[in-house]
């Protein structure tokens, strides 16, 4: 028996009243506010990406449809993919990284609060930059993985690909800065007693995700730089006429691209691994196995990239090697699924909304994982790749996986973040409509793909048997879209109610539930000390059940980082630099130089201003 995980400060002095105006949001360096900014922005982009998908589905609902021109369709499917991956799922994960990691490890904030704000602003500007392309009728239109040499200047003469390349570079800067930040935070700022193997599993999965970000993003940065040089300076990295090889793009892209999909799913694994134990009222089954399988997946994830290239004729040895490594990665993934089931088994399930979504995640991810195993066999994949079968696969893991999990996390942590509980009835309605709509949309895609429908086609003829399945998919997508209307209604309705949610509505196991809902700006008045996993359960057990509602205390004597607008200015400089690069052909290098100077200036001001 030692000091409890959380003690209650008897500090004197006025309770710090937090600012709430617009300026406080613009200059915030508080990880919680930044997390909310990420969440709101990402959800907006998610809705935009969803709208893009609905337009695609309307077009595909009928054979030979003319609702969308091929040009519009190709822009929409490209932006749908790019938006969902880079502007929705990743930043929604970032919302949780931001909000939860410091709380879960008992810290007051992340290692570099201003860098954190910078990451958010750069993300926002990157998303705006990408979407600004629509204003010029030049939205990216070569798919979210933009294969060379279609993306060369010769075959894509407009600004579409330039928007895409530069937009992704901006987003890469955001991700890399955040990854350095969270990596350092997790390594260095854990509370006393929180050894690595006592960290909440969400923190572990996030940690592994940061490593993947750090190692994978530089590769796509290089790939995009080479493409930019081809387009702007006339090099031939990917241009066959000058000796270049389009396959180089595929290798570089997928060396990034495959770890990227683990970046998209590992946080989801972490969220679900936090929710299942709480609503089963027993600990996560096989914590160590979950940690090591996550590490193994990340490591192996760098060794499977060419399974995206099975149709390129790499030869039997390469095909075999990547097939076997891909099958191998299925093993730790399966281990996780079994451990989740083991968590639920023998429990006392409290069927609340977060639990519904978490269980739905497992059910859908099993399907997505199995179609992934089918892809792992090159002979089979030779029929499946580039068809709707693979569209089904990745939507099952990305939507059925990531989005279901992120939604579970939203319902679970909503009270902590906003001090209000989302309505249960509406939450369950959201779940069922989403589950049904999702499966109606994506399950038939397995079949229509096997029956011969390639992906990225703006229409299809009568007589190939595609129409019925496409109609079902379109109907499903409308149901799926409307499920989010329920969520939005729930959010608005809840926002009108008083912020009186308790600190620990779910009987949570981790440190964030020891703080008021929402926590005060400084999080912990006194740095907690932990002695086990599930520190809050341990504390509650010691105290004989529940904890009293924590009081809001004075922030006297607590050092808080100062708000700052330099991260925003620096982010604007980054945006200016890339806009100048986009216009390079017209304006020459001087606007870029000016933006660079502005960036240097703002970084210096940032570096030399007092931090707190």
């Amino acid at each position, binding site marked *: 028996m030692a000091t409890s995980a959380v003690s209650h400060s008897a500090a004197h002095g006025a309770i710090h009243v937090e600012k709430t105006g617009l300026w406080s949001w613009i200059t915030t360096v508080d990880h919680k506010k930044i997390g909310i900014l990420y969440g709101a922005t990402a959800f907006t982009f998610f809705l935009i990406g969803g709208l893009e998908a609905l337009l695609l589905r309307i077009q595909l609902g009928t054979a030979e449809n003319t609702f969308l021109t091929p040009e519009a369709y190709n822009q929409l499917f490209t932006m749908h993919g790019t938006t969902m991956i880079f502007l929705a799922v990743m930043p929604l994960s970032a919302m949780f990284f931001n909000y939860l990691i410091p709380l879960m490890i008992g810290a007051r904030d992340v290692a570099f609060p201003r860098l954190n704000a910078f990451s958010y602003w750069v993300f926002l500007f990157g998303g705006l930059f990408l979407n600004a392309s629509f204003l010029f009728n030049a939205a990216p239109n070569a798919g979210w993985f933009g294969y060379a040499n279609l993306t060369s200047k010769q075959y894509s003469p407009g600004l579409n690909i330039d928007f895409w390349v530069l937009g992704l570079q901006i987003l890469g800067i955001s991700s890399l800065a955040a990854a350095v930040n969270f*990596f350092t935070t997790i390594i*260095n700022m854990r509370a006393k007693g929180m050894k690595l193997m006592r960290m909440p599993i969400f923190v572990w999965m996030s940690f592994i995700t940061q490593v993947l970000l750090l*190692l994978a993003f530089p590769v796509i940065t290089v790939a995009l730089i080479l493409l930019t040089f081809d387009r702007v300076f006339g090099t*031939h*990295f990917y241009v066959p006429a000058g000796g270049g090889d389009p396959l180089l793009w595929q290798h570089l892209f997928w060396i990034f691209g495959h770890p990227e999909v683990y970046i998209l799913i590992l946080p989801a694994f972490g969220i679900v691994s936090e929710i299942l134990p709480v609503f089963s009222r027993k600990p996560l089954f096989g914590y160590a196995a979950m940690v090591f399988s996550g590490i193994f997946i990340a490591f192996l994830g760098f060794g499977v990239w060419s399974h995206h290239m099975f149709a390129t004729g790499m030869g039997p040895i390469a095909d075999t090697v990547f097939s076997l490594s891909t099958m191998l990665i299925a093993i730790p993934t399966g281990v996780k699924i079994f451990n989740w089931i083991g968590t639920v088994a023998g429990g006392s399930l409290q069927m609340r909304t977060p639990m519904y979504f978490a269980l739905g995640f497992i059910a859908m991810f099993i399907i997505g994982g199995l179609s992934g195993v089918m892809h792992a066999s090159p002979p089979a994949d030779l029929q499946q790749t580039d068809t709707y079968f693979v569209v089904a696969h990745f939507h099952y893991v990305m939507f059925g996986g990531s989005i279901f999990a992120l939604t579970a996390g939203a319902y679970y942590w909503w009270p902590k973040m906003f001090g209000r509980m989302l309505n249960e009835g509406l939450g369950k309605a959201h779940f069922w409509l989403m589950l049904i709509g999702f499966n109606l949309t994506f399950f038939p895609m397995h079949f229509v793909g096997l029956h011969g429908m390639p992906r990225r086609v703006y229409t299809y003829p009568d007589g190939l048997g595609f129409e019925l399945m496409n109609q079902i998919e379109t109907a499903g997508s409308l149901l799926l879209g409307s499920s989010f209307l329920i969520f939005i209604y729930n959010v608005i309705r809840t926002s009108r109610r008083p912020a009186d949610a308790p600190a620990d509505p779910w009987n949570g196991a981790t440190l964030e539930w020891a703080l008021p809902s929402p926590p005060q700006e400084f999080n912990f008045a006194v740095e907690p000390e932990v002695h086990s996993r599930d520190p809050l359960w341990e504390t509650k057990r010691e105290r004989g059940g529940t904890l009293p509602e924590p009081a809001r205390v004075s922030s006297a004597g607590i050092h808080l980082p100062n708000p700052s607008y330099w991260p925003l200015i620096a982010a604007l400089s980054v945006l200016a630099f890339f806009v100048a690069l986009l216009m390079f052909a017209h304006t020459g290098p001087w606007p870029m130089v000016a933006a660079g100077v502005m960036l240097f200036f703002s970084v210096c001001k940032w570096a030399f201003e007092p931090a*707190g």
Partner: protein
Amino acid sequence: MSHATHALEHHTATGLDNRKVAIWTFIGSECLFFASLISTYLVYKGRDTSGPTPDEILQIPLVTFGTALLLFSSLFVVLALNGAQRGNRKAMLGWLAATIICGLFFIGMQVYEFQHFMHEGLKLQTNLFGATFYTLTGFHGTHVTIGVIWLITVFITALRGKLPPEKALNLEMAALYWHFVDVVWIVIFPVVYLMK
């Protein structure tokens, strides 16, 4: 920087300052950046069908001298850091200046090399060697330039008396980055200039 004082007071799980962990993390990430550029160089090595080839155009002696300068500069920055940590202002400023001068010479050598190559008919667009060579060494040179700017900034801070031993970490971070830039060159130099 007041933040530095606070940072040192904060207990960290590794005992290392956050900023030191961060710079190492960043360096780890940058390794993949250069690995991708070096791989691209290697993949396209020897596949030119026209234009100047490495054998024809590379000036090994000049670049060897530049390489030596860069290597020595890493030693100089270690000595500068030593001076900073011990409060030896003369040593700190002197060796830091030496580091910066070496860095500037290296950049100068590269600028000269690039100009010379362009006169000889090797441009970025000329062939695969031009593309991969300029991109790889150009990005390295950019990193050297950023490093030099960073070191100059630290030098000015030190000159104004704002780099006492407690704040030596500011120099250490720049020094770590500088070492990284040097190590990358230690890979690039044999791969580009020495390998046949």
